[in-house]
């Protein structure tokens, strides 16, 4: 069990004490209140508090007096002063006398949370708790990262070996293979796991939106920006930023990105304050970055900065053994969500799923199961529930079709069968001459009775 931090709120206004009491109580603190400096001092002498929030202006003992007395008892005591705007100069004096910081009423919730967290981290209380948890936690993977095939076990090995380092990772794989899940697996097995992993889909945003999304903006920095917004790099402080579809960012953003990754500091759009953030970078792409570099579309220096440790996720067609596991996982998932009593998949339907080529990978399989469960009428998924038409092109019905020659053989055979072995028509569709088609038929030993 981690220890709950103890906080003492000292304010003569009942309403202020109550508001702060509830706010910190919900935030998992052990909270006590005192209505004046005397009572606060008595409480402080009896039991140690990790942090004190003290109003500057109180009848009797002032906040400044209380600060001095508390510091006499414990010179490391963390005291945050609450001031009205008018008493800011006094609060600054208080800082010189050992107060940790001050807040001006009313305070932005985000700022209050930030100041309190900063104070506690200074005493390393939170860090100790985190370290305690890290020692007892075992290696974990996200619940929905499914697969026990040899290929996926290799992926897990890479994930676990790189997670404990702070190395930049690039995840490569076709669309729908689960790159985000692998990024998450790296994050939750790293020392950063108690801080967030922030995902940014770089391909979905225009250059200006991406800039604002990544770096944040100040209030009024553009029309409609009524409130400031922290950027994704800021939110990823002590956590991980996952930049998906990295190959699609503009040359200008590539420069910005390189700078922020190297310096770990930036300005919000329309702001002057230099924001520092300690983040780990994980990127993903299904594009051939090397070719983009050669074509001058992706900066070489950024490429080398990102391409430190690569994890390649195999397409689903190369790990068919995982299909039954994935199917069962999705059935369970959608049964709960749809409140349906579907429990299994028929043998015919599973054979069908095992032989399909899955160009859209796991995401396509998930969609197929979801659709089947919507239209299905029984407690088992049947072939007719699946959203496919029997087209030869996406099937590897005779088992593992892995080589180019095997694919070509299968494709030619399917086209011949679809066209009733009409050689002229088939050759026309395949855009080859009839002689070449005959040669292929002989080469692959194709016959009319074969399907």
């Amino acid at each position: 069990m981690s220890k709950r931090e103890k906080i003492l709120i000292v304010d003569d206004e009942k309403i202020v004490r109550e508001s702060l009491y509830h706010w910190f109580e919900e935030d998992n603190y052990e909270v006590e209140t005192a209505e004046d400096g005397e009572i606060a001092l008595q409480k402080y002498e009896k039991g140690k508090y990790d942090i004190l929030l003290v109003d500057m202006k109180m009848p009797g003992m002032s906040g400044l007096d209380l600060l001095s007395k508390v510091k006499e008892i414990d010179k490391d005591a963390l005291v945050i002063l609450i001031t009205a705007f008018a008493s800011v100069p006094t609060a600054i004096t208080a800082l010189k006398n050992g107060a940790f910081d001050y807040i001006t009423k009313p305070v932005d919730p985000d700022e209050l949370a930030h100041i309190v967290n900063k104070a506690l981290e200074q005493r390393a209380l939170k860090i100790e708790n985190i370290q305690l948890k890290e020692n007892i936690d075992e290696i974990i993977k996200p619940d929905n990262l499914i697969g026990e095939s040899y290929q996926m076990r290799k992926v897990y090995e890479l994930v676990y070996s790189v997670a404990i380092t702070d190395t930049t990772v690039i995840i490569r794989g076709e669309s729908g293979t689960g790159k985000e899940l692998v990024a998450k697996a790296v994050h939750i097995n790293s020392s950063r796991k108690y801080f967030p992993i922030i995902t940014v889909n770089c391909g979905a945003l225009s250059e200006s939106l991406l800039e604002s999304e990544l770096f944040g903006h100040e209030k009024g920095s553009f029309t409609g920006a009524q409130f400031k917004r922290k950027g994704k790099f800021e939110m990823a402080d002590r956590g991980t930023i996952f930049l998906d579809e990295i190959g699609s960012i503009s040359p200008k953003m590539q420069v910005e990105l390189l700078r922020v990754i190297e310096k770990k500091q930036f300005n919000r759009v329309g702001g002057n304050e230099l924001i520092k953030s300690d983040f780990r970078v994980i990127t993903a792409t299904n594009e051939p970055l090397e070719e983009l570099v050669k074509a001058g579309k992706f900066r070489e220096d950024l490429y080398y900065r990102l391409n430190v440790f690569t994890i390649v996720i195999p397409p689903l067609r190369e790990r068919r053994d995982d299909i039954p596991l994935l199917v069962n996982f999705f059935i369970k998932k959608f049964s709960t969500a749809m409140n349906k009593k579907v429990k299994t998949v028929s043998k015919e339907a599973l054979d069908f799923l095992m032989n399909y080529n899955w160009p859209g990978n796991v995401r396509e399989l998930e969609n197929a199961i979801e659709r089947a469960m919507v239209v299905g009428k029984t407690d088992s998924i049947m072939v007719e529930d699946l959203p496919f038409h029997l087209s030869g092109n996406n099937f590897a019905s005779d088992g593992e079709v892995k080589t180019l020659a095997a694919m070509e053989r299968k494709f030619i055979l399917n086209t011949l069968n679809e066209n009733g072995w009409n050689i002229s028509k088939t050759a026309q569709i395949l855009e080859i001459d009839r002689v070449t088609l005959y040669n292929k038929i002989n080469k692959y030993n194709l016959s009319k009775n074969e399907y």
Partner: protein
Amino acid sequence: MNIFLAPLRFYNTLLQQNLITELSKRFSSEINVIDLNIDLDEFFSVDRKQYFSTQIIAEAIKLTDNLDGKIIMLTDVDIFVPVLTFIFGEAQLNGKHALLSVCRLHEEFYSGISNDNLLLERTIKEFLHELGHCYGLRHCIDWDCVMHSSPGIEEVDIKGSTFCRNCISKVEGYRY
């Protein structure tokens, strides 16, 4: 356990309907809409141009003695508690009442661009969050959990949209 949704000066009927549809999928209990007939003007702060959340909840407590269940009020107006500039919502920890304001969940205040899907997503998260407090849940350290604290809109967006394994056990009738 019944869940009551009480709109207070809340006029986005489409959002309300979509919220109920989503909650109905997630909870085994029915989501009932009730009218509490609270005059919010009484709780308006002229200085702050916002409504005092704690006092609204106190008024709701007086009016709902006979109701058995959790009562989540939903409003469009901007709400506050003293000391803080604003709050998204307030709840009675391990109690019956909560108030949620969607005012600062609107994306147009941050980017100038309206986004109804994002508004619904944020509303669902914050509704579950306040309801979780009513079931006695405090803030969770898991960023994938809807009970993670969200002092700003950025945290609302990055935290998960459902309860983590630890928190879910405390929320009655929650399916997933």
